[in-house]
């Protein structure tokens, strides 16, 4: 045994000395292996860290550890990254309570959150609508004023609102002129032009107070429709049980407003959506420029994106101008003149000059905007407390609309900047079901009431003929007085605080939307599309998926369970794609390594034919020669692979301390926060060594074969 060890010792010694003797070869071969080891350890660790943090993002924001949906669905469930591709065709889960009961029987399941994911178009407020509404309110107030004081105050209000509307109309007039310059004259309805010109005329405003309601009607019908700043918003939302959601996804926190109370209809905007889509564009751009210059180290002078934003702010002051009534116009003019030390009187030009920022004056302008100008502006198109009218196409194709009050905004801790995690807004389950075309208890009761009123009743298929043509004489429903069923829908958003002048029906509907409390039973027992499952032990996802599907079968439910990565759809696959790329890179590197190492070893072996022949002649068995070469390769593999892996560990550890900053919002999601702190997986080090040794062993096969065929006779041959 000791002699055997001594032989191994001599083998190792010869190997070491050979490696040292042919340093260049060793360094080249070793260098490749070093790089390979580094890549395996660092690359895999980095990727594992991204997967781990991304899983936290996905699991912590919507998916949970496992998503459950109906196995009969035509499409697979994707809770994230669906973007604009429409809803997947999912079959519903009829009774959430039953599903949850079944899921909770599975041992590892901690909690279950009901869900349904969909999207809808929402028209947000139109500035002129709001202005006209205010004017109407002021006119009403003047009419209803009881004291002189009240009347005087209302008169002032009317004058101010009139100024605002006039301002808007003059902006519209300007737009029309511009449109004529760039568009074919014929595409513009001359009636529209005439209406705007009339509304802009002094005569119109002088006569306004004579017949204010007539004038208002003209403005509402002929002018408001021409102001095209009511952008369509596409909102993705999850219908859910707010309380269960907040409890299960504990990274969720309310930023503005409050949580939707249990049993109420309500909508929570994702903070990111709220900022990105609903904020006044000029203000949003200021935020982004600030973010870019202060947090990302860019400058307006060099970064084309920031430059573009400055340019857009300069050219798009209209959005702000439309919000300015007479008083605000005066106020803005004074403030801007002072700030800019300018004699200019046109507020539009003053604003344009104000937004013409550079790296030097940006911070000051930004702060001035928020301190002096913003308090007079509506910064968001939808305010907390507003009622949002959401219209969506139901599964069966008709349009359904639901009014939901906006309670606030929320975000997920660490994912504040991620577009992906911040793309989904939250809605109560009952409203969701309605929009999706399911009957809520509320709707069902309404329909039953209507049916009762209309005398309609369910007819089974077998009895249909008898019912239609049957002999039984009934009071013909047609004989009753014709009914007009009015649907009151509110286009766009109408703020509740200012809806004094609205139709009673709409008002009631909104009032009801805010106040109606539905029993928790209704949330529980109804239809859902999917459910997020939070596990007690997140490591046992695979086992739990099997258990859930088995339990579902036992309970007569057709449940399909998928892990968070599958539920994350494209995003989940993104990591797989990176991993494949990394593996291909590693594979290529090691294939190249294999070829180069093999080549180098073959050359080295051929150079050493005589030495090998001598060893064979003096009594070395073939296996000794084999061992010698393999040990050489493995020593190189171990030392250089080890160094590479070591550097990888060091690198990942150091980077793990500092963290990799997320450069864009996408990376916020993948990093589950502003920085990724990569960690070393032991399995990666083991894998690195395994791969390195495998490559070393493989690459020495051919040279070893050559070496083993060297005969002792070759020791005798003399090269002349």
């Amino acid at each position, binding site marked *: 045994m000791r002699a055997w060890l001594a032989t191994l010792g001599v083998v190792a010694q010869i190997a070491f000395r050979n490696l040292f003797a042919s340093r260049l070869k060793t360094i080249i071969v070793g260098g490749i292996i070093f790089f390979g080891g580094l890549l395996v350890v660092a690359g895999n660790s980095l990727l594992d860290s991204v997967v781990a943090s991304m899983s936290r993002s996905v699991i912590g924001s919507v998916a949970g550890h496992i998503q459950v949906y109906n196995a009969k669905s035509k499409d697979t469930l994707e809770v994230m990254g669906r973007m604009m591709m429409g809803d997947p065709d999912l079959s519903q889960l009829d009774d959430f309570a039953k599903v949850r009961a079944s899921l909770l029987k599975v041992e590892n399941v901690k909690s279950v959150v009901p869900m349904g994911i969909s999207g809808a178009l929402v028209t947000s407020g139109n500035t002129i609508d709001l202005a006209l509404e205010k004017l109407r309110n002021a006119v009403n107030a003047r009419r209803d004023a009881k004291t002189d004081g009240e009347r005087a105050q209302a008169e002032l209000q009317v004058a101010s609102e009139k100024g605002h509307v006039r301002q808007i109309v003059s902006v519209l007039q300007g737009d029309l002129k511009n449109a004529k310059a760039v568009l074919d004259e014929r595409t513009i309805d001359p009636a529209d032009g005439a209406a705007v010109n009339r509304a802009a005329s002094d005569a119109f405003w002088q006569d306004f107070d004579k017949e204010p309601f007539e004038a208002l009607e003209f403005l509402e019908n002929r002018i408001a429709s021409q102001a095209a700043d009511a952008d369509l918003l596409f909102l993705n939302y999850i219908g859910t049980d707010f309380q269960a959601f907040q409890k299960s996804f504990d990274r969720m926190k309310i930023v503005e407003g409050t949580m939707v109370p249990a049993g109420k209809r309500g909508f929570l905007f994702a903070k990111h959506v709220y900022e990105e889509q609903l904020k006044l564009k000029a203000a949003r751009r200021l935020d982004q420029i600030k973010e870019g210059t202060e947090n990302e180290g860019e400058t307006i002078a060099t970064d084309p994106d920031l430059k573009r934003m400055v340019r857009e702010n300069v050219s798009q002051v209209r959005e702000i101008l439309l919000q300015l009534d007479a008083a605000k116009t005066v106020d803005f003019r004074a403030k801007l003149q002072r700030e800019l030390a300018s004699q200019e009187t046109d507020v539009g030009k003053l604003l344009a000059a104000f937004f013409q920022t550079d790296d030097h004056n940006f911070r000051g302008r930004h702060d001035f905007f928020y301190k002096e100008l913003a308090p007079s502006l509506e910064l968001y198109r939808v305010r907390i407390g507003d009622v949002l009218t959401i219209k969506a196409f139901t599964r069966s194709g008709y349009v359904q609309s639901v009014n939901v009050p906006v309670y606030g905004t929320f975000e997920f801790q660490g994912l504040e900047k991620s577009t992906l995690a911040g793309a989904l807004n939250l809605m109560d389950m009952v409203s969701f079901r309605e929009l999706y075309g399911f009957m809520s208890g509320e709707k069902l009761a309404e329909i039953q009431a209507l049916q009762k009123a209309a005398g309609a009743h369910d007819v089974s298929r077998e009895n249909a003929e008898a019912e239609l043509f049957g002999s039984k004489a009934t009071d013909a429903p047609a004989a009753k007085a014709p009914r007009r069923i009015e649907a009151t829908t509110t286009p766009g958003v109408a703020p509740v605080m200012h809806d004094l002048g609205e139709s009673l029906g709409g008002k009631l509907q909104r009032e009801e939307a805010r106040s109606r409390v539905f029993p928790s039973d209704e949330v529980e027992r109804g239809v859902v599309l999917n459910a997020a499952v939070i596990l007690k032990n997140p490591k046992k996802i695979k086992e739990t998926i099997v258990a859930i599907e088995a339990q579902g079968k036992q309970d007569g439910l057709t449940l399909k369970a998928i892990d968070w990565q599958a539920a994350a759809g494209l995003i989940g696959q993104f990591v797989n794609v990176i991993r494949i790329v990394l593996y291909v890179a590693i594979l290529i590197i090691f294939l190249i390594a294999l070829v180069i190492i093999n080549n180098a070893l073959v050359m080295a072996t051929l150079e050493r034919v005589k030495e090998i022949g001598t060893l064979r002649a003096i009594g070395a068995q073939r296996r000794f020669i084999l061992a010698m070469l393999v040990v050489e390769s493995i020593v190189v593999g171990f030392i250089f692979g080890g160094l590479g892996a070591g550097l990888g560990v060091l690198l990942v550890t150091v980077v793990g301390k500092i963290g990799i900053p997320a450069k864009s919002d996408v990376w916020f999601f993948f990093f589950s926060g502003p920085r990724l702190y990569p960690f070393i997986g032991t399995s990666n080090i083991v894998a690195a060594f395994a791969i390195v040794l495998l490559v070393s062993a493989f690459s020495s096969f051919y040279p070893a074969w050559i070496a083993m065929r060297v005969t*002792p006779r070759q020791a005798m041959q003399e090269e002349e």
Partner: protein
Amino acid sequence: MKAIVSVREAVKNYILGNVVVPALRGVTLDVVEGDFLAIAGPSGSGKTTLLNLIGCVDTPTSGTVEVAGKDTRQLSERELTDLRLHTIGFIFQSFNLVSVLTVFQNIELPLLLQRKLNGPERAQRVAALLERVGLREYGAHRPSELSGGQRQRVAIARALVTRPQLVLADEPTANLDSVTGAHILDLMRELNRTEKTTFIFSTHDQSVMAHANAVVRLADGKLVDRVTPAQAAAETGLPA
């Protein structure tokens, strides 16, 4: 005296492409223990082939070669290797030391392959041999730091370290100057006398043959005769 090597009608053909090249055409030879035998002949006469057969590096195409009582044609590759390791020592024309090992390690190498002795025993034996070949101070040197004569002495020490019954030397002095070559032969001769080791060496050098007990002359793959060194020296102009 007992024959350590017994060659009977040994024929060795090499195949080069489609051509059969006869290297030995039926050689019969006995070498007794303690012999100090020179195999002489011009190049191509089959000296090295004969040495290869005796050295168990090759086996005859026909005929038999027995070394230490074993018929080499009956042995497997592995057994031949073992026979070389335990019974035969080799000295090569160009020394064939392992360049990356020290002198000491080169000499120790066959002992490591044998796996019979432990470290101190090996060290003792190597030290004794270094002393014997006059290289006591050179144990830690690399072969490249030595002169040709010193290298060949290291090779001799390596060949003798396992105390083989037989040492084969293929043109051991061909790469040395005559004085050094003479010293090497003196050393071999002395070891032959003191250690009773049988030496067979090939040469085409008259002065080298002079050291031998007997000279076996080869020509065209055939044994011409077996003479004394004096006879060999007397007959100038050997058959080509």
